[in-house]
Each structure stands twice: as C-alpha cells, then as structure tokens.
C-alpha cells in the first residue's frame, strides 16, 4: 500500500511534514467554568473544565493538593463505522488516564488543596490523533477556566510509513499498522510529559520521529498561544480597557 506517492504527497494531499488544519475556539460550553473546541483536520473534540470546587467524594480528598479527574467519551457516531459501546470501555478508560496524568503534571495542584478539578473531553468526530486533540483541547479549557499551570501542554503525533516520517497521522494512515508516536511537551520548559508508541521502529529513526512530533507540538503551542492571546484581547476589549 502506498501512503506517500513518488511526488511526496500523502493520501489527503499533505506533504510528509505538514500538519492538518488547526482550529480552536474558546468558551463554547456556556455553563462550564472553562471550555474549548479543538479541531485537527476532521478530528474535532470539545473539552469542558469544572472547578476548582469542593471535593464531591470526601474519601478522595487530598489535603496537600487538588484532585484532578478526567473523563473521555466518544459517541458512537464519531467514527467511520457505527458501533454501540457502553460508556467507560477499556480504550476510553486508558485515554482518560493519559489525559489526567498529562494535565496533572502541568497544573499547579499544590496551590489548590482540598479541591477538585474535573476535565471532561468529548470527541465529536474522530479521524486520527484524538489523543493529541483531546490534550490540546483540555489545555485550552484549563486556561479558559483560569487554572494555574506551569506551562501549556501541547501534543501531536507522528508516524513512519513507506520509509518516510509523517507528521500528524490521519485515521487512514494510523490504521496502516505502522508506528504511531504520540508526544506531549511543555513547550517553554522544553520537557516531554507524554510519550507513547505502538509497533516497532529502529532507534535512530525513532529519534527522528520523536523530533518531528516535538516540532509538531511546538507548532500547536504557537497556535494555542495565538488563540489565547486573541481571546484575552477580546475580553479586554469587552471590559473597555
């Protein structure tokens, strides 16, 4: 199967090092404390943040830091084939955990002891890279909720098909069976907080692919910065400053 044609063009018309179109909106769920929609091509996710607030389940309360919780859900219309799955299957539990751990690493939880922050991520349409899109959406929603963070975590995936490293895999490329590396970074501190890979890859190529994904994360970070800045300007304008 040919995923990159001899002219170096991928199935959806992108170059190997090209990302899909990014789009983000802040404040889409009116009732949440913070919310955002993040789109990467046809992948579209909504994130909503509630909190910091009182801990609902007292036994989970932490006396020295905030409790961060996350729920990921995917409706049955979001994928190509329709299937009925109950809420809380293995895949979504794992992604919830990944998102929670990644976000926990950047939230300054020690500033909010005995409180709880809920992050809810809802996939609307899945076309590869849902994990990355969820993390990017969650970052924006947390920023919108005004929750103190070390840095904005951003995430992007990269793969390796037809001996070419590819940035930001679509579902078609993801299901090709090649390696899929998802990286999450703290762009200002230049630290990797999330790294996942399936399938196998020689070490020297792995380095290149991770490097590529990291570059992708930085591009996402630039975009997220722009969106947040624009949003802040809007808020400033509305306050009449």
């Amino acid at each position, binding site marked *: 199967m040919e995923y990159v044609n001899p002219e170096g063009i991928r199935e959806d018309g992108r170059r190997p090092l090209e990302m899909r179109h990014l789009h983000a909106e802040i404040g*889409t*769920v*009116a*009732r*949440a404390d913070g*919310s955002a929609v993040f789109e990467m091509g*046809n992948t*579209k996710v*909504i*994130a*909503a943040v*509630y909190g910091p607030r009182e801990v*609902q389940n007292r036994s989970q309360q932490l006396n020295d830091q905030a409790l961060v919780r996350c*729920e990921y*859900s995917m*409706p*049955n*219309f*979001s*994928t*190509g084939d*329709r299937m009925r799955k109950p*809420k*809380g299957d293995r895949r979504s539990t794992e992604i919830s955990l990944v998102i929670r751990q990644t976000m926990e690493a950047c939230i300054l939880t020690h500033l909010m002891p005995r409180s709880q922050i*809920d992050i*809810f*991520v*809802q996939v*609307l*349409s*899945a*076309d590869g890279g849902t994990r990355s899109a969820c993390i990017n959406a969650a970052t924006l929603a947390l920023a919108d909720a005004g929750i103190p963070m070390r840095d904005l975590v951003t995430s992007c995936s990269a793969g390796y098909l037809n001996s070419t490293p590819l940035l930001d895999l679509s579902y078609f490329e993801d299901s090709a069976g090649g390696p899929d590396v998802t990286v999450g970074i703290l762009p200002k501190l230049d630290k990797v907080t999330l790294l996942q890979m399936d399938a196998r890859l020689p070490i020297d190529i792995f380095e290149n692919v991770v490097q590529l994904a990291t570059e992708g994360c930085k591009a996402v970070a630039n975009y997220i910065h722009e969106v947040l800045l624009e949003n802040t300007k809007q808020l400033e304008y509305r306050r009449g400053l």
Partner: protein
Amino acid sequence: MSVREWMVGLSAGEKHFIQGGIAQDLRADGRKRLTYRPIYVETGVIPQADGSAKVKMGATEVIASVKLDLARPNPSQPGKGKVSLFVSCSATAGPMFEGRGSEELSAELSVALQRCLLGGKSGAGAAFDPSCLSIVDGKLCWDAYIDGLVVSADGNLLDALGAAIKAALINTRVPVANVPAGASLDEDPDVDLSSQETTRIDTSGVPVIVTLTKVGRHYIVDATSEEESQMSSAVSVSINKERRICGLTKRGGAGLDPSIILDMISVASHVSEQLMNKLDSEIAAAEADEQM
C-alpha cells in the same frame, strides 16, 4: 427530577423572583412567557455522518447526527428501512452527567423523542416515511441511526434535540445504491455505492416539539434550567406542518386538569407555527452556508 434540582441550587429569593417574573409575563432574561431564545443552527458539523446538525438555544447546545448502514429489512416490514434513535448526554454539560450519571436523563429523552418522531410500532405518524430507505424490497435497505448528543444543558433539551434532529434529517444525503442486475441478494449483497448521486429524505412531515412548562398558574416555552427547577409539570407536544399532533409526553409530578392539558395543546399548536417558520428559515440558511 433529582438531577435538575441538584444542578441549579437557588435561594428562596431567586425562586420567588423567577416565579414572580413568570406571573407578570416578564421572565428573568427579559423574555415573555411564549418567546423562545434565539435559535442558531449549523448543519454538516460531523464529516463522518450522512447528515448532522448543531442547534444552540441560549446556553443549551445539542448535536444530532444521522448515519446510514446497509442492512436487511425486517421480514414483517419488507419495504421499509429501520430507524432507531438514541440520545446521550455528554459530561461536558455538567459533572452530574459523569459516568453513569446521565443514563436516566438520556433514556427519558430518547423515549420521549422516539414517541414524538418515530410514531410507534406501526410507523404511522412518523417524522418521515421509512420506505424511502428501501433499496430492494424485502432484501436490502438502509438502516438509519439517529443520535443526539447534549453538549451543554440549560433547559429545554427536548425541543432543542427535536430541532437538531429535524435539521440533521434535512441535511442527510442518502447515497444511491446501484444493485447489479441479476446479483443474488441472499448472501452478502454486492452493491455499487461508487456513484456520487444522492437523494434526500422527504422531511416535509417532520414535526417540531414544543414543551410547555407549567410554573405556578402559567405556562412558558423554552424554559432555562433555573425555570425548569421551579416547574410543577411539563407537556411536550410534537406538531407537524398540518398542525397535527404526532406525539405527546407529560413530565413532572403534579397532576393536571384535563381542560388545562387541552388548553396547553392549543397554545403549543399556536407557538409551533412560529417555531416551525423560524427553524425552517434557520435551517435553509445553514444549508446554504454549508454549500458555499
């Protein structure tokens, strides 16, 4: 109702203010009793679906999608496709919908919508004629899966979902399936879907749903969640273009006098006309926008 009570948390003064406002025909957000919040429709929001739409009414936001699958028709109804409808509430709408918390409300909304739009077992009074989904009589048909998703909840979910499903059905393109002549359809059907041609579902009979919420002695349309927390009962009526009633659901604890129910239905039928016109123009605008 426990979910909604928990969600809002109003003080005695606020409750009094809401009830007083409704009694004087001037609600907390400045609307009259029978005025809707501005409705915003966007179609084609989910690229993977055959038809989809997003509807916003104030802070309430819902998404509906229609997905078509090739299947074998039910032997008792050989010339019709099967239509099923499910609603789920996303946790983004509030922490109380986390995990299994949304199941009760999702089931309540699903059943109410099935009653209003699918028209019972016989299919009579349904939103659209499922025989338009048939490809080969008794052998092959499209199954339509209608899914609703509540993204943000601020009251009046049923009307919003009804509107979103209507918009999604209008947005739906049914692919033209070419069955090769002489092909045997008894095993796995071999169907040519390569043609770009599509047909539309006849949606002229899709009803709108109007929910009248009774607060005190008066009833209001398009209640916010604060107003819903003060309701004694609510009646949801689905009415089509010919002003026929396609389905009816009463919710809430308090009993209603039969004459009041009849009065509510006639008010709903009056309001439905405005809503239908407003919705039709919004959907037409959204469809025109999408094609640009």
